């Protein structure tokens, strides 16, 4: 069957077997091997991509179900040679060791930061009626929000540091511009 969707801004029309997952379509059909296959059963988060602005698992997404959608993978994050701030922060904070989980970690972290700016609560938010705030977000909040991305090398402290660095920079720049991010 035919399916049309965009990947990193580029429109694709693919002829797919309905059994093909988005993960396998990205890696094996489109050659975008930055998205990693870890568990292939929705447990590890290595295959995380962003579809229509939301972080999701490409291993549990059928390519056939992506009609009309916009997918962002790790290859679509940098602007030319300029790294996305989250990529730069992972480098600066040494937020990885073997690197296998890193593309999923970074895409998940990009969305986690957006969710924090939207003020939405997590499981560890004291009162779900209140919005969270980037300036006062705890490490416990960051860990909970990133719990869908496993790292066998246990780079977790530096991943939290990278996310905290991006949040801090954005809070600082918002203060200097006199507005909220």
């Amino acid at each position, binding site marked *: 069957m035919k399916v049309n969707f965009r990947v990193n801004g580029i429109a694709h029309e693919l002829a797919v077997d309905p059994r093909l997952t988005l993960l396998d379509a990205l890696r094996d059909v489109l050659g975008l091997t930055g998205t990693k296959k870890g568990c292939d*059963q929705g447990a590890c988060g290595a295959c995380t991509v962003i579809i229509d602005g939301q972080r999701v698992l490409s291993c*549990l997404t059928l390519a056939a179900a992506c009609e009309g959608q916009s997918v962002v993978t790790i290859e679509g994050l940098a602007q030319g040679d300029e790294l996305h701030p989250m990529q730069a922060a992972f480098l600066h904070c040494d937020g990885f060791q073997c690197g296998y989980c890193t593309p999923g970690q970074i895409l998940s972290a990009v969305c986690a930061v957006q969710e924090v700016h939207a003020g939405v609560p997590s499981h560890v938010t004291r009162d779900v009626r209140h919005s969270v705030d980037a300036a006062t977000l705890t490490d416990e909040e960051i860990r909970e929000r990133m719990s*869908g991305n496993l790292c066998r090398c246990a780079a977790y402290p530096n991943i939290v540091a990278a996310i905290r660095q991006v949040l801090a920079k954005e809070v600082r720049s918002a203060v200097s511009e006199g507005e909220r991010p």
Partner: protein
Amino acid sequence: MKAFTFERSARALDAASAAGARPDAMFLGGGTTLVDLMKVDVLTPATVVDVRHLGLSSIGVSDDAISIGATVTNSQLAWHPVVRDRFPVLSEAILSGATTQIRNMATVAGNILQRTRCPYFRDIHASCNRRLPGSGCDALEGFNRGHAVLGVSEHCIATHPSDMCVAMVVLDAVVHTIRDDGTTRTIPFGELHRSPGDTPHVEVSLEQGELITRIVIPSLPAARRSHYLKVRDRSSYEFALTSAAVVLDLDGDTIRAARLGLGGIATKPWRALEAERSLTGRKATDVAFRDAAELALAGAVAREHNRFKLELAKSTIVRAFTVAREAKV
């Protein structure tokens, strides 16, 4: 994965008709259960009907109720400002389950219809009456630490895994459906899921092709004082060992009415009505909560590895009510 044909419908009735005409068709929501179980050959539909584009992905709010489209995502519902304000127990329950990625994918109807995480259900080489009727149940004498103690039968002790559903049953949600002949009906949430009895493979009271279109939660001002407490082996991304969804309607320190739902220990989203009634008119003390907890677990049947759940569930209930009692609303 077994081959299947993929169909996408634009209207709810078309989807119901597409699946109603074929006994081996299944609806696809977010895919977090269906695609997962298709990969391990536990579910083998010949036709998959994608229902995410039926115009059922919005949340309607009125003074009397909130109406949740079937394909609203778990994140969308948990993060909705009115849900967080009026029904904190529902937001808390959803946010305690899975991960953001999975909650972003999973639909509300899909959460309701998700399958058990019993490892013997998931393993096609194991005996499981739920997966293959009459084949037996390896969990009865097997590794049953995560299994249910309420609503069990000699044919199945699989736990219903949902957190969200425990809040839904406590909030008296109503499930709206459409059938392939175009007729619609409503099902009280507590009557949707079935205890296994001697037909564990019949999990819900829906006909082939019957599509959930929305879930309506009636106004409940007391739910501002509500809480979901989940106890598990890890602090995140783990199913419940025990959980409690509570609503507490207080008049000073006296209980006008209480509601209690239980998760992690039952074969379906569990409502402890007798325990609820025992609290009416009592002072909101730890002793009253403990008495209610004893009632809630009175009919429990434990197995070799899940006996610890009996006491853990009672403690969970007491703690959940205590937190609700102390909440500033």
